[in-house]
């Protein structure tokens, strides 16, 4: 035994075996304790509870759910809510970040001050505080009777934001899809010497065609766009954005935008000045340098940091529980409360987030590899 400890190799094997045994014992001990406790509480383990009906509703959902829906369906609704607010939030944060980041590298002093003030204000305050704040703002709005009129097309009240929504039938959608396909084909055909101009022309032509087709093939009794209308104490028609969703989205877009803005700024600053000067010296105009050299190189420098930020923002959607937005976490924790199926639901919760985040991370890595300049790492 003592001789075995002397050689490096066998010592390594012993250490690893001991570690494995310790971890195994720890996990086994926790599982056994949990089992014992669950049996004492009279809870059967397994995933059978997924088919039972929940008995509780959620207030925001993309698919139809009620208190009679099964646990499986309720969990799906929660997962879709997480993806909904997450993906919309990522898109919004990217947009805000691009604007703010470019303001800060624009060279214009006033724009720089505005951009810096935005970043320093919203990056240094916790996201959850911002989400709670926006929720308070939205729920302190006047009731539907005194709703704020947004130029006649939408309303803002303490029930949420009412917006017009396209009300398209299956045929309408088909026509639009056909027009889009035609646009792509036409743009490819016409794109020759001046690809940008040809593409713009083709797009304009086909957009006109699409509008024409749409009106020809459309059922005249149905309006193309459904407008929200006030009826007594509530609204009918249009699209209703619930305050819970709007507050969480606003928080993620602004907080994420401040962080993405910093990434964008760093990306633009990371481009070597010599490369830009070389492009100028080759006779490219300022705008051409920007479009053909500065932006492509900056985007490549941003991608890895952006991927991390996206994963972080996706995880931050769980904060919606603080204002009652029924995301995946909130549905799972309510389900744990109601059924006591702790272990199974916790596994589903962690599994769901790991799948979302690894998919997102994998997609960003793929994009990064696709865009990488050949011959550089």
């Amino acid at each position: 035994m003592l001789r075995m400890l002397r050689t490096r190799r066998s010592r390594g094997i012993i250490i690893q075996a001991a570690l494995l045994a310790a971890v195994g014992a720890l996990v086994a001990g926790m599982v056994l304790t949990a089992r014992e406790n669950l049996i004492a509480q009279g809870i059967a383990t397994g995933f059978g509870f997924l088919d039972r009906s929940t008995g509780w509703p959620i207030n925001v959902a993309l698919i139809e759910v009620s208190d009679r829906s099964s646990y499986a369906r309720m969990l799906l609704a929660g997962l879709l809510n997480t993806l909904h607010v997450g993906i919309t939030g990522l898109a919004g944060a990217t947009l805000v970040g691009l604007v703010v980041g470019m303001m800060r590298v624009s060279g214009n002093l006033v724009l720089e001050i505005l951009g810096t003030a935005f970043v320093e204000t919203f990056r240094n305050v916790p996201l959850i505080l911002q989400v709670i704040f926006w929720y308070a703002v939205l729920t302190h709005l006047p009731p539907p009777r005194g709703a704020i009129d947004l130029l006649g097309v939408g309303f803002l009240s303490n029930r949420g934001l009412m917006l017009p929504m396209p009300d398209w039938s299956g045929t309408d959608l088909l026509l639009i899809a056909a027009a889009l396909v035609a646009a792509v084909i036409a743009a490819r055909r016409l794109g020759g010497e001046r690809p940008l101009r040809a593409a713009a022309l083709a797009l304009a032509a086909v957009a006109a065609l699409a509008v024409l087709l749409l009106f020809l093939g459309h059922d005249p009794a149905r309006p193309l766009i459904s407008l929200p209308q006030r009826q007594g104490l509530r609204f009918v028609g249009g699209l209703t954005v619930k305050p819970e969703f709007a507050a969480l989205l606003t928080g993620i877009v602004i907080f994420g935008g401040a962080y993405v803005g910093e990434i964008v700024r760093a990306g633009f600053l990371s481009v070597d000045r010599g490369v830009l000067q070389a492009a100028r010296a080759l006779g490219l105009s300022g705008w051409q340098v920007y479009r053909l050299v500065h932006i492509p190189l900056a985007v490549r420098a941003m991608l890895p940091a952006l991927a991390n930020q996206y994963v972080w923002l996706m995880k931050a959607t769980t904060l919606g529980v603080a204002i009652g937005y029924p995301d995946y976490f909130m549905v799972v924790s309510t389900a744990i409360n109601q059924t006591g199926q702790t272990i199974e639901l916790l596994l589903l919760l962690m599994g769901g987030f790991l799948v979302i985040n690894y998919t997102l991370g994998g997609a960003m890595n793929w994009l990064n590899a696709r865009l990488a300049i050949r011959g550089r790492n």
Partner: protein
Amino acid sequence: MARAPAPALPPPPAASGLAWLRRRLFATWFDAIVTVLAGAALVWLLAALIDWAFLDAVWSAEMRERCRETAGACWAVIEARGRLILFGLYPHEAHWRSTLACLIVVATMVLSCLPAFWGMARLAGLWLAGFGGFVLMMHGGLFGLPVVTTEQWGGLSLTVFIFAAVVVLGMPMAVVLALARRARLPVVAGLAALIIDTVRGLPLLTILFAAAVVAPLALPDWAQGDKLGRVIVAFAVFYAAYQAEIIRAGLQSIPPGQEEAALALGMPWRSVVFDILLPQAFRNTLPATINQVVITFKETSIVTIIGFFEVTASASAAIGRGEWGAYYVEVYVFVALIYFVFVFGLSRYGAWLERRMRLIRG
């Protein structure tokens, strides 16, 4: 065909302050338009902010009737509800203890930021004393101080305590995880990688929720401890997973020749790690570390959701639905300022540290 070189241009004129301003504001006509429009927006924003926060504001609770008439901020709500925001549910007559405890932790944080305290033994001693003082003040039970259980802890001192405990506990964990992930033993490295990658893939809230609500189910009674303790340990693991990757990046940035040379000279492994590798790893990754610490401070607000009364939760409680309900903006702005002061201070300290390190390196 040889061409004669173009005549040399005259040197650019020396930059004056006015020329600089002109270049930054009115470089082209397009810039000029943008400057005028954005400048007008900036001035309008500033004016509105100053009007709201200072000129039209109501400052004292005695004049709270005026809050309903003015368009400005009603800071009177801070005077009326400030104690609730800063102390949460902590017993009213013992607020001085919470204040003192908060000051102890902040002082410990400031002291450990000073280079004079950098050293394993000194830092460990400092933090043991700091946490000891904090718990003695907050919890009581000695020297005739009545006991206040952790369920009643709250407000700013809870925020600061959670933050300090998470970083102080998490940092050694991060070092262990980073070293383990680089170990030559595959089981050790694999286990560390599994822990780090899993924790980083999960939202902090799910981990804290598991620690607060689910852990009692899987742990025997003697190992459960206090809910606050469990949450802090889980938070520290989360922090450590991120910090470990930062340290690992720092370790990778050191040329392998240094480690080989030190081992070849016969230095013991512990000395190689603690005297050669880790100091450089920390220095190389200082900006990332400060960034992670700042994020951790902001994320302490998440414990609100699992039922702790730190400063974000007590702000919501302070607003309530009663007479001060209409002045939620003032309360949230006040709490945001508290966070801002801490976070801004931390990031300034980080910038100072970075400059200092660069000077040493030369």
